[in-house]
C-alpha cells in the first residue's frame, strides 16, 4: 500500500459518504420498486395461501429455503473476514472487513425473512419464539427449526453488535467531520466516543472477545442450518458430512459474494488505493482453499452414496445428476468445484474481470447447490407413488427479487450513510507519524 497519512485516509474514506448523484437515486428508486413488488407478492401469498407458490406435496420446501440457506452462507464470509481473520491478525482484512461485516448483517436480515415467508401461517410466526404460550405450551427444543431460531437469532444479534461495535470509532470520525443535524445523529450513534486510552483499552478487549465468540458461532450457525437437513431421514439430506460441508460452502459462497460486492464498490467509490488488487487476490487464494474443500465434500458425498449401498441414497444422487434438476446439479458442480480452480493461475486471480465473473458463477453455483439439495431430494424420496416435481412460481420469483432488493437497499443506504471501509482500521495499518521522519 502506498504510504498514506492519517488525514489523507480520513479524507478519502469519508468521501464515500458525500451526497449521492442521480445514478444513485435512480438505482435506489428501481430497487425500491422491486422491493415493493416483492412485498405485494408476499401479501398476496399470505392472503391466498402457500398454493400461490410452486410448492407441493412431496416438495414442501423450495426456493425460499434454498435462498435462506444461501443468504446465511453469504453471511458467513463476513464473519470469517471480520472475526476469524482478525484473530489471525491478517492484515488485508482491515480494508474489506466493514463491507463484509455489513454484508453479514444484511444477509442475515434478508435470510431471516425467509422462514417467515415460507411458513403457512406467517401471522403466527411468534409461536416459534420461546415465551410462555397459552395453555402451558412452549416450543419444541428438539426441532431443528427451533435451533435455527436460536442460531440465526443469536447470529443476527451478535453480528449486529459486532458490526456496530466496530463502527463506533468510525462514527466518531464522521461526527467530528459533520455539521448540523448530521453531527447530532452521528454524535448520538457514536455514543460519546472520544478515543481515549481508557476507551481503546476496553474496546480492544471487547472486540477481541466478540471476535472470539463469533468464530465458533459462525461455525455453529451453518452447522445447525445443515442439521435442518442432516437430522431428517430424507435421502440426500441424511448425512453426517453436512455440517462441515455446509460451513465450507457458506464461506465459499460468502467469499465470492464479497468479491461480487467489493469489485464494483471500489470502482464506484474510487477506493482502489485502499482495496487493492492484492486484497482481491487474497480472497481469491482463500477461494482456492474453499473450492478444494467443496471438491472433497462433493466427492465424499458421491462416494458414500455409491459405496454405502443404500438404494434410496443411490437413486437420489442418480436423480440429481440425470433427473429433472440435472441442469442445476451440473451448474453446482462446475461453478463451485471446477471453475474457481482457475484461480490457481495468477493472471486469472489478478484480473478484475475474471475475479468478478467467477465470483458471480460461484454465487449461482452455490444457490444451485442449495436448490439441488432441497428440491431434488424431496421430489424423489422414498415412495415412488408420491414423486412429483416442483417449479417456482412467479410469486416465489417476485419475493426472491424483493428480498434481494432489500439486501441491496440496505447496502445502498449503508454505502452512503456509513464508511464502507473502516477508517480506524485502515489507519492502524499506517505507522503513526513520527517526528524523526518528519525531520528528515
Amino acid at each position, binding site marked *: 500500500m502506498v504510504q498514506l497519512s492519517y488525514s489523507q485516509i480520513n479524507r478519502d474514506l469519508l468521501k464515500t459518504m458525500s451526497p449521492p448523484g442521480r445514478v444513485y437515486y435512480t438505482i435506489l428508486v428501481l430497487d425500491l420498486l422491486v422491493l415493493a413488488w416483492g412485498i405485494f407478492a408476499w401479501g398476496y401469498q399470505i392472503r391466498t395461501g402457500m398454493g400461490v407458490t410452486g410448492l407441493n406435496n412431496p416438495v414442501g420446501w423450495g426456493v425460499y429455503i434454498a435462498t435462506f440457506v444461501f443468504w446465511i452462507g453469504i453471511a458467513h464470509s463476513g464473519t470469517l473476514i471480520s472475526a476469524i481473520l482478525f484473530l489471525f491478525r491478517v492484515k488485508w482484512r482491515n480494508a474489506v472487513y466493514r463491507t463484509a461485516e455489513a454484508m453479514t448483517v444484511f444477509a442475515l436480515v434478508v435470510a431471516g425473512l425467509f422462514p417467515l415467508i415460507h411458513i403457512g401461517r406467517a401471522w403466527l410466526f411468534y409461536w416459534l419464539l420461546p415465551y410462555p404460550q397459552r395453555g402451558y405450551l412452549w416450543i419444541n427444543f428438539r426441532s431443528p427449526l427451533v435451533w435455527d431460531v*436460536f442460531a440465526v437469532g443469536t447470529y443476527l444479534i451478535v453480528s449486529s453488535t459486532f458490526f456496530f461495535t466496530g463502527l463506533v470509532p468510525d462514527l466518531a470520525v464522521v461526527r467530528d467531520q459533520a455539521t448540523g443535524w448530521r453531527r447530532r445523529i452521528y*454524535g448520538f450513534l457514536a*455514543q460519546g466516543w472520544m478515543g481515549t486510552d481508557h476507551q481503546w483499552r476496553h474496546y480492544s478487549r471487547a472486540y477481541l472477545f466478540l471476535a472470539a465468540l463469533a468464530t465458533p458461532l459462525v461455525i455453529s450457525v451453518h452447522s445447525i442450518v445443515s442439521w435442518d437437513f442432516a437430522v431428517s431421514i430424507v435421502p440426500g439430506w441424511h448425512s453426517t458430512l453436512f455440517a462441515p460441508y455446509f460451513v465450507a460452502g457458506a464461506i465459499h459462497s460468502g467469499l465470492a459474494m464479497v468479491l461480487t460486492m467489493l469489485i464494483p464498490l471500489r470502482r464506484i467509490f474510487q477506493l482502489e488505493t485502499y482495496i487493492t488488487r492484492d486484497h482481491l487476490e487474497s480472497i481469491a487464494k482463500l477461494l482456492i482453499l474453499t473450492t478444494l474443500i467443496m471438491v472433497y465434500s462433493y466427492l465424499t458425498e458421491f462416494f458414500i452414496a455409491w459405496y454405502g449401498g443404500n438404494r434410496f441414497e443411490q437413486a437420489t444422487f442418480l436423480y440429481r445428476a440425470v433427473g429433472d434438476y440435472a441442469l442445476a446439479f451440473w451448474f453446482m458442480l462446475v461453478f463451485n468445484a471446477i471453475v474457481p480452480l482457475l484461480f490457481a493461475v495468477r493472471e486469472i486471480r489478478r484480473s478484475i474481470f475474471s475475479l468478478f465473473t467467477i465470483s458471480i458463477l460461484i454465487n449461482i453455483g452455490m444457490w444451485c447447490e442449495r436448490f439441488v439439495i432441497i428440491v431434488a431430494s424431496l421430489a424423489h424420496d422414498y415412495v415412488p407413488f408420491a414423486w412429483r416435481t416442483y417449479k417456482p412460481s412467479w410469486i416465489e420469483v417476485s419475493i426472491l427479487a424483493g428480498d434481494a432488493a432489500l439486501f441491496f437497499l440496505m447496502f445502498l443506504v449503508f454505502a452512503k450513510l456509513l464508511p464502507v471501509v473502516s477508517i480506524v482500521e485502515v489507519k492502524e495499518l499506517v505507522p503513526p*507519524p*513520527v*517526528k524523526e521522519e*518528519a525531520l528528515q
Partner: protein
Amino acid sequence: MKERTVRVVGIFIYFDAFLEAIRRLKDLGYRDLTAFSPVPHHEIEEVLEKPQSPVRYFTLGGGFLGAVTGFGLATLTSLNYPIIAGGIMTGGKPIVSIPPFLIMAFELAILFGSLSTILGMLLNIRLPRPRVQPGYDPRFSVDRFGLWVRCPADRSGAVEEVLQACGAEEIRRDEI
C-alpha cells in the same frame, strides 16, 4: 474545599513526541492522564501502565449464564406439559434430549457472552453517553494525538512546559 484543578490539553502531530510527553509527565508523577488517539496503540497502554481490562470476566460470566439458561430453558419447558414420560413425546425421543439441548446451551452461551461483553465494555468505559466531554477536540479522531492532564491549577504551568518541550502542536488550559 479542595484545591482547584485544571485540565491542560496538549495536541500532538507526532506519535513519538506524544508518547514522550506521556512518559515524562508520568515520571513527574502526574497520574490523571487521558490520552486521545485516532487509532488504538499498544504503546500508549504500555506507557500508561493500566491494568488489564476486566471485560473478560463479563464474557466468561455471560457465557456461563447463557449455557445454563439455554439448557435449563429447554429442559424445564420440555417438562412443563407432561403427557407421556413427563413431557410431549415426539418421535420416541427422550423428553430431556441432551444433544439438542446442548445446542441451546451453546447458542445462548454465545449470545449472552457477547451481550455481556458489550455490557462490560460499556460499563467500563462509562458509555454510552449522548455527547463528548467538553474539551474534546474533533481532530483527535482524524490525525492528532491528544493528552489531557488534570492537575492542580498551580501546577499547570509545569505541565504546559513539559508539553511544549515535547513538541506539542497546541496547548490549552481548560477550567473545570
